[in-house]
């Protein structure tokens, strides 16, 4: 079944390129016995919350006076949810981001925010493809 092959290739690529780590595999194991929409719900929540956090980080960093404590606190939220869903690259970039926060370096933070944003959007677009392929596979197996 082509959708299944595409899904397997996509997943393999996401793990191989460091976008995802073993924590995501653990979620897939946890998913067994849960509702079929469990992974979709996880991905949807992560993407929604992640985008909100990134937008809030941008607003904080573009203020005349940057409250680096608030930036750091928000960053831990993104790092936490990234670690929980297995979004390795986003998590690792957050860890780098903390160092610029601790040094109170606005431009370092802004540059790293761009990297986080790119990593997040890259992951989000692949997650969206994953969800679509999962739905195609699910529909196929329901019919046959």
């Amino acid at each position, binding site marked *: 079944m082509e959708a299944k092959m595409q899904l397997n290739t996509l997943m393999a690529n996401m793990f191989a390129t460091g976008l995802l780590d073993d924590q995501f595999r653990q*979620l897939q194991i946890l998913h067994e016995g849960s509702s079929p929409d469990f992974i979709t*719900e996880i991905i949807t*929540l*992560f993407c929604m919350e992640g985008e909100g956090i990134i937008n809030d980080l941008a607003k904080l960093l573009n203020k005349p006076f940057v409250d680096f404590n608030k930036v750091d606190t928000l960053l831990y*939220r993104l790092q*936490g*949810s990234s*670690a929980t*869903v297995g979004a390795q690259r986003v998590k690792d970039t*957050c860890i780098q981001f903390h160092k610029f926060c601790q040094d109170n370096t606005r431009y370092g933070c802004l540059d790293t925010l761009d990297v986080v944003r790119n990593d997040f959007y890259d992951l989000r677009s692949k997650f969206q493809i994953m969800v679509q392929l999962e739905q195609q596979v699910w529909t196929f197996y329901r019919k046959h």
Partner: protein
Amino acid sequence: MASNAQGSPVKALLVDDTAVDALILSTKLRKFHCETTVAKTGKEALDLFHEGKKFDIVLCDKDMPIMNGLEAVEKIRAMGEIDVKIVGLSADYDATEVFMSAGADAFVPKPMKLDVLSAIIQEVINKKNNTMV
């Protein structure tokens, strides 16, 4: 199965404002048949205790709006809730000391793995069983 000798499920309070983290951890708790309540802020958690709700374990995130996890843990202990096991959670790997100072029993960095959660839940069950003997 996460129940004590008399069969009642372990009552868990999960305090986390990040919806995806709360969903994943509550799913893990369900795997151990825990009866789970979710609070989104430290204040919501505290209100539950003020309402007389009882929990065997509290899993509490650090950074939340309105009332953070550290303040919530301090206030829960100040209410006299000394028996409930409180585990701090955070992506801040250096949060052990602040959580323990606030009155937590343990700190686990996010993400909490299933085997770590299993050991914690078993500890709670053993304590309940020993209390009942």
